[in-house]
């Protein structure tokens, strides 16, 4: 297996080549405003090192280029490059007083809301139809969308994660009227909770044009680098989607950066269950690895002010990093940071702002910049700053623990020097080689996942979980995983009050390696 992982961070775009489980080379290029240039540059740098060529001079076979990008979330947060969307909800007469977009921030709604149509349809919690799908109304809505010039459509339906048939049929009817429509069905985005699932679908539809252009640009960048390998985009949950699926479901790539660094930490340390502390330039993220994957947040996640139920890692971010401002009297570290201006504003680099990196240089922990410029910082002063940073890190680690007892902590990121070898509540601190590029490594090793979140009736708990697992397995295979490599990494069941017949909601997530046929 030979893969290139690329992570587009706030400051640097890192690229890493992994061969047969080993990190061969890591390069960094500055992140460009258009993102793509930075990716091109990092791939070019990797090529310049010669690692992509055989001894004979021929290009090596690369199995995949896995890119972690912030393109899509930035578009939503910055309200740029968004497409107007037609929202179609199946479920009348229910839910009519809370139409699509009803809980969106007004500025974003104004950009995205192309029109709202609600028609009869949807299902009950037990799979009975709630109302028959009003096909004539769907077609009428499609004609109105066509007339309004809308080509991006988000379809939602009541209880569609249980039975997606109404959404699928409506998509067919719309495609018949608008052949070049980009259609997102909310059931493809899983999870029970109509408003949040619908919101995710509408955001996805709003990113349709951007996703098409971005993925095409990435593919061009890979081709222009002379690399013949398929493109994969890393997703929020530490897995990848092949390019065509990422083009169809860009919202799944929203928060992949933090996930990649945790996955990379697991890979570089060989540990599957541990806490991870990722110290960047401005912030420190703390999360927990379970079976090599980050534990997910279980609740509503707001993206650009919109409520969604995305699969996102459960992270605690604090304002501590390699660029954090330091003041000595009274002692304060962070949360303000010089960020990407570290090499200009830090004292060791001729600037005026004392940072944690200056302290590390003064105490000999880092060899960077001009040590003479920070020679006035004595050992006692440096220790006070390190102690304060350690205190902040300890507090963050403690808040993210899910059980009492000491944990193993993997320290990664460019600012990992702030994490001491001994910490309260931590049995062992693990620093790893290439830890500053853990996110690109995480991208390179990403797997493929499948999920099922559904209500089962009249099954024993064991049978219900098995049924959910089968569905999740099929979805993972459909997304490009090799069936033989699938393992269950999450299984959660919740009995449902007020429902008859032993109803139980089961959520199962499986992952596997990318199947050979995709490589």
């Amino acid at each position, binding site marked *: 297996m030979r893969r290139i992982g690329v992570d587009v961070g706030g400051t640097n775009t890192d690229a890493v080549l992994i061969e047969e489980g080993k990190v061969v080379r890591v390069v960094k290029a500055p992140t460009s405003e258009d993102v793509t240039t930075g990716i091109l540059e990092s791939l070019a740098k990797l090529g310049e090192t010669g690692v992509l060529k055989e001894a004979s001079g021929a290009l090596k076979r690369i199995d995949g280029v896995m890119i972690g990008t912030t393109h899509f979330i930035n578009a939503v947060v910055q309200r740029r490059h968004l497409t107007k969307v037609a929202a179609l909800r199946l479920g009348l007469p*229910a839910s009519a007083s809370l139409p699509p977009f*009803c809980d969106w921030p007004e500025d974003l709604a104004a950009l995205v809301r192309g029109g709202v149509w609600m028609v009869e349809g*949807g299902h009950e*919690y037990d799979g009975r139809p709630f109302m028959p799908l009003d096909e004539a109304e769907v077609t009428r809505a499609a004609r109105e969308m066509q007339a309004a010039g809308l080509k991006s459509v988000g379809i939602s339906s009541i209880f569609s994660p249980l039975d997606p048939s109404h959404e699928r049929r409506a998509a067919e009817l719309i495609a018949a009227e608008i052949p070049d429509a980009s259609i997102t069905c909310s059931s493809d985005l899983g999870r029970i*909770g109509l*408003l949040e699932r619908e919101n995710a679908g509408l955001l996805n539809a709003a990113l349709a044009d951007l996703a098409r252009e971005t993925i095409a640009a990435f593919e061009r960048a890979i081709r222009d680098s002379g690399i013949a390998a398929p493109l994969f985009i890393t997703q929020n949950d530490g897995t990848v989607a092949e390019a065509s699926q990422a083009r169809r479901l860009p919202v799944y790539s929203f928060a992949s950066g933090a996930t990649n660094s945790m996955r990379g930490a697991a890979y570089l340390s060989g540990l599957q269950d541990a806490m991870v502390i990722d110290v960047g330039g401005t912030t420190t993220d703390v999360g927990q690895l379970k079976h090599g994957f980050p534990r997910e947040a279980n609740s509503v996640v707001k993206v650009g002010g919109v409520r969604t139920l995305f699969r996102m890692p459960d992270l605690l971010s604090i304002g501590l990093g390699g660029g954090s401002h330091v003041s000595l009297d009274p002692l304060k570290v962070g949360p303000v940071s010089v960020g990407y201006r570290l090499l200009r504003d830090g004292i060791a680099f001729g600037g005026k702002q004392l940072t944690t990196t200056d302290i590390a240089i003064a105490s000999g922990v880092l060899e960077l910049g001009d040590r003479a410029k920070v020679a006035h910082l004595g050992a006692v002063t440096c220790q006070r700053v390190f102690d304060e940073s350690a205190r902040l890190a300890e507090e963050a680690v403690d808040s993210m*623990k899910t059980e009492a007892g000491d944990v193993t902590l993997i320290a990664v990121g460019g600012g990992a020097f702030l994490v001491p070898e001994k910490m309260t509540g931590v049995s062992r601190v693990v620093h790893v080689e290439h830890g500053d590029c853990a996110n690109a490594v995480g991208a390179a090793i990403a797997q493929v996942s499948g999920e099922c979140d559904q209500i089962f009736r009249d099954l024993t708990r064991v049978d219900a979980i098995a049924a959910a697992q089968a569905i999740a397995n099929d979805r993972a295979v459909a997304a490009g995983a090799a069936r033989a490599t699938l393992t269950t990494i999450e299984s959660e069941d919740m009995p449902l009050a007020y429902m008859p017949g032993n109803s139980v909601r089961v959520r199962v997530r499986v992952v596997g390696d990318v199947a050979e046929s995709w490589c």
Partner: protein
Amino acid sequence: MRGSFVSEAVPGYIDALQERSKRMALREITLDDIESLAVGAWVLGTGGGGSPYLGLLNMRQLYAEGYRVELMAVDDLLDDDWVAAVSNMGAPLVGQERLTDSRTIARAVDLMERHTGYRFRGIMALEIGGGNAIQPLMAAAHLKRPVIDADMMGRAYPEAQMTSVAVGDLVPYPLTTVDVRGLESVVDKVPTWKWMERVSRKICVEYGSIASTCKAPRSGAEVKKWAIHGTTTKSIAIGHAVREAQHRHEDPIAAILSVEPGKVLYRGKVVDVERRATEGFLRGRTRFDGMDDWRGAAMELAFQNEWIVAWLDGKPIAMSPDLICVLDSVSGEAVGTETIRYGQRVTVIALPPPPVFLTPKGLQHVGPRAFAYDIDFKSVFSA
């Protein structure tokens, strides 16, 4: 007296009405009040009652369309006024897909008026805890009647007989249930509150495990004697305190205790959650490890939809009808029994129960034995 249906027939009614309009000041409920109500009602939900979020969204929509709701104090009711008591019944999960429609609850009230011939003076909540706190506001907006500042639980409870009016042995019928598709049912007569619970639950399941209901109408006299007064205002005050504290980055739990005579029972971290569904209830236990002053002390909470009993190091220290509220230690917002999870940092507080539940009859309905815990009730607040 259930026969007379036009209050106008009562001698002196017009005089009383005029007298009332002189002293009575209906207070307009602002949208900001409703935002606070949603937060406060979730706290009073004591772990259950469902999230008020969708109800709040409905109210935002209604206020944006120009609808307004007024609040009326219980004392301003006439004895022979009729009051509708409303609630949404069903599985919170279904409510996340079939979203609350503000008009449905108004139809349940309308059906009750058609069935009984009464004209309701105002609308009150059955249950101030959780999402049901917003239901009367939605009905009131559409029907242009005031919300009566009271409910029948002072919190959330899982069953129909766990109300102040059931403690008072008031008649449990009739009851209307409607569904958004136009299904309408009336339960005209049942012998007991428990029967009402059983029959209405069956109807609800057939509807798809969600229904809007209007409970047995209550006379003004009954509301004055048996309802729990002032709970809408109380809920708004709690929510306001939490939101203000969040805004100022102050301790929201201290803020709650500054408006309510409650007690902090424990601060800790969730270490285990065990849930099971039996007889249509979500039952289970949550275990915590202590923090701050409670380091080394273990708490265990049992729930049946709502938090029922709290044990500290194996000793029961709080139980229904005392309100046990589990709050996020940082945000001050309530944590529900359906969503509480591993690792959450929480503060457990107790709030005093409505006096009606502290009588021997009240304890029969909602004391620990009503939930099958063989413990003698002792209030956190009696010491």
